[in-house]
């Protein structure tokens, strides 16, 4: 074949292996590489955000101020929240989407590979701005991840940098979401109708729309903060005719759908893992899809439940209470479907399945506390207390994070070509699952007994449960080192994984070899 013919073949240049060195990662447009980058970025940020959490728990170990002074404490809680949400959970799910969506729908890559590269590489910039602001005069942002003015208007230069970081992360998320939605809508293999898509793909499709809808709202809100801070506007400053509560309305109009951005992909992962290890198809596939869609739609009309104490009129409180209660119905349907999937299956309990089962159980505890908080009159007692902290850590740690763990243990064989060390995995699971409850369960009691959140020091009656929570926290933190070990070990070697790594696995990703070759589905598969 002569040189001319080679270059004329558009596929020829793409049929090479991965390029080597740093340039591979900087310039890559390969969905698998970019997925890997997202996941490692999340891992690094998890370490940073986790260390902050450890410092918080050290300070809260006993009453009095010991290690962390109040100013730094507020920076730690604020940064911990921002980093875990925007730096860990969201990038990790996007990493899963990059790896899995093309593999699951039989597409050769994402729809916009270059934009994909760009959406990833924006993230480290934003992360660096955020973390770097810790070292500026006055320290990092300390007004809480919710950024409420007028408090947010008081801070120094790092507050502006954080706004900038949020803009960048928002741009990254929007580009990622457009990419994922376009890929799913346009690049499915012939025969894969929407209602044949794996549930993970469905949940991400809906998540992508949520992102596109609400990230601009957040960008608008923080831009108004920026102009209030620097250009003399008074959107949120009552002294100039502004309204501080307006910010909360706008923020939570973003913030509540954001909560589902953080959990819908988790539902998708769990809906892949459980059928595999129950060796039984997912129960109620169609109702799962409809439940996901209705949760997403309802998520736009419940934001007021974060604001029951601002003094809304009774009618508004009741509206937001009823709307919030409604969300429990589709969420309940999901839990029932997962249990029904396990029912009369033939279950085995590899680590991925252990995390999935723990997810179903513990996420539901977070759902129940959510139900308690949804009751407007009861929320009056609980809003801004440790009860809320317990609630959202149950849904975000034992919910979102555990689903990420389940996904990692489930797909690592496909990504690395090696089976994971199940013994280590089990240790990681049991240590995490027990300590996470020691960490977060007592927080329910603390909140009920009257401990506000975001305080570096507390009254003596809260001492015992705080100590228990801190101990649980240290064990939980340390246990995550095991996960790193498992992953590194699996990358470097282990029992060879077959194309279909798990006996009960179904779906296109299990038809390509393990590890998945650099390029897959150059020829679309036929889906019957």
């Amino acid at each position, binding site marked *: 074949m002569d040189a001319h013919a080679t270059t004329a073949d558009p596929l020829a240049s793409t049929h090479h292996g991965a390029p080597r060195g740093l340039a591979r990662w900087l310039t890559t447009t390969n969905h698998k590489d970019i997925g890997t980058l997202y996941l490692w970025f999340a891992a690094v940020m998890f370490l940073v955000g986790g260390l902050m959490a450890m410092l918080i728990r050290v300070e809260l170990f006993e*009453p*009095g*101020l010991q290690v962390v002074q*109040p100013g730094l404490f*507020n920076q730690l809680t604020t940064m911990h929240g921002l980093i875990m949400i925007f730096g860990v959970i969201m990038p990790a799910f996007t990493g899963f989407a990059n790896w899995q969506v093309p593999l699951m729908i039989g597409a050769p890559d994402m729809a916009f590979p270059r934009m994909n590269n760009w959406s990833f590489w924006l993230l480290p910039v934003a992360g660096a701005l955020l973390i770097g602001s810790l070292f500026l*005069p006055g*320290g990092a942002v*300390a007004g809480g991840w919710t950024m*409420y*003015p007028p*408090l947010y208007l*008081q801070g*120094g230069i790092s507050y502006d940098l954080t706004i900038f970081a949020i803009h960048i992360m928002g741009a990254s998320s929007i580009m990622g979401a457009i990419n994922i939605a376009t890929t799913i809508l346009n690049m499915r293999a012939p025969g894969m109708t929407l209602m044949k898509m794996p549930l993970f793909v469905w949940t991400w499709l809906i998540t992508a729309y949520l992102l596109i809808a609400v990230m601009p709202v957040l960008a608008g809100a923080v831009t108004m903060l920026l102009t209030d801070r620097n250009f003399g506007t008074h959107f949120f400053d*009552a*002294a100039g005719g502004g309204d*501080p509560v307006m910010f909360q309305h706008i923020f939570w109009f973003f913030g509540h759908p954001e909560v589902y951005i953080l959990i819908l992909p988790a539902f998708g992962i769990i809906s892949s893992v459980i059928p595999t290890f*129950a060796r*039984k198809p997912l*129960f*109620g*596939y*169609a*109702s799962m899809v409809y439940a996901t869609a209705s949760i997403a739609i309802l998520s736009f009309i419940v934001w007021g439940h974060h604001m029951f*104490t*601002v*003094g809304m009129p*009774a009618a508004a409180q*009741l509206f937001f209470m009823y709307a919030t209660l*409604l969300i*429990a*119905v589709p969420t*309940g*349907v999901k839990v029932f479907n997962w*249990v029904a999937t*396990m*029912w*009369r*299956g*033939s*279950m*085995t309990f590899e680590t991925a399945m252990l995390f999935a*089962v723990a997810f179903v159980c513990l996420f*539901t*505890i977070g759902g129940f506390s959510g*139900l308690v908080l949804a*009751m407007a*009159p*009861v929320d*009056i*007692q609980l809003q*801004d*207390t440790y009860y809320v902290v317990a609630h959202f850590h149950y849904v975000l740690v034992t919910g979102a994070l555990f689903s990420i763990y389940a996904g990692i243990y489930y797909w690592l064989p496909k990504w690395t070509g090696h089976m994971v060390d199940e013994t280590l995995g089990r240790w990681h699971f049991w240590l995490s699952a027990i300590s996470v409850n020691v960490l977060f369960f007592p927080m329910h*009691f603390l909140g009920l*007994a*009257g401990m*506000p959140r975001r305080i*570096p*020091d507390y*009254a003596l009656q809260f001492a015992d*449960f705080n100590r228990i929570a801190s101990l649980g926290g240290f064990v939980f933190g340390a246990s995550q080192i095991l996960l790193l070990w498992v992953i590194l070990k699996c990358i470097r070697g282990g029992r060879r994984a077959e194309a279909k790594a798990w006996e009960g696995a179904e779906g296109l990703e299990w038809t390509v070899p393990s590890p998945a070759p650099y390029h897959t589905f150059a020829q679309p598969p036929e889906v019957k």
Partner: protein
Amino acid sequence: MRMLPGLPSSIGFMLFSQAAAAEWRFNLPPPQTEIATRIHDIHTFILLVCLAIFVVVFGAMFWALFRHRKSVGHQAHHFHENTTVEVIWTVIPVLILVGMAWPATRLVLAQKDTADADLTVKVTGYQWKWEYDYLRDEVKFMSVLATPREQIDNRARKGPHYLLEVDEPLVVPVGRKVRLLLTANDVIHAWWVPELGVKQDAIPGFIRDTWFRAERPGVFRGQCAELCGVDHAFMPIVVEVRDEAGYQAWLDEKKSGMARAAADAERTFDAAELKARGEKVYAANCAACHQADGKGLPDIFPALAGAAIASGPAEAHIDLVLEGKAGTAMAAFKDQLNDADIAAVVTWERTAWGNQGSVTQPADVRARRK
């Protein structure tokens, strides 16, 4: 109205022994108002419903986990749909939710009913203290954390009400409907006393209201519940509920105190008196930011020890304290402190920590008020 009268008063008490629960607080504190009691009961009710659902659903799941596993030779059944079941488990939750929403709706309406109050107090949140203004009686005072710094810094044994004690509590009569009008001076705070079942954000530029009617005399403690800056953890709320006579006695005593303070503004103090008073005012109002040693916090709150303003003309110093500095954490103190207090604190700042400034009198402060 008590909902579900037969219910045990606390789930914690059900799960753990009575003795243990006395030390370990698992539940909402003992309610002291009708509203708090109803909150308590609704919470218990929902908790029991959730517990029941949890047992049923996860009973089934754990049954499956043990019986339907491969290692005991269970074969997978390949069903994956059943419309009847799916309809049932959609409809039943809806009914349960309606059952929960009904009492909650009635309670929301009761919480919002601030009409026909016997007493109205305006509550203003400041970084980091509360101001109580008894609108009809012209009694107005600040309420500041009373826990000594040594306890917070672990240099002294912590008292029983560590971080939940103030110099001057809000005093109210028992059995009377007290309406609170809430606002804030700087950032958003939230006024919260769990035993009274009240939490309401205090929002700068806006007035919000809420109410409570305490059923028994006693002292009830709470905290600011909305992150409001560095010392958010250090602005507690203490409500003292007294019988009618006790309340009246307190009110009279307060009124004569106010009269004395007004007289102070006309007096000329000697320097020692001013400094002694100034040190106290400083500790209660300024030390949170500028620190007790006057050194401030680097890059956040400026040092006053050795500051040019403290040895320069007194007018500039007084003006800054009166008017604050817009756009920074330095608030205007003209509405928070009277002339005598401002004169005292300015004198203290100008003479403490080796500063060599002049002494200022209440009359100097009055002259600078616009």
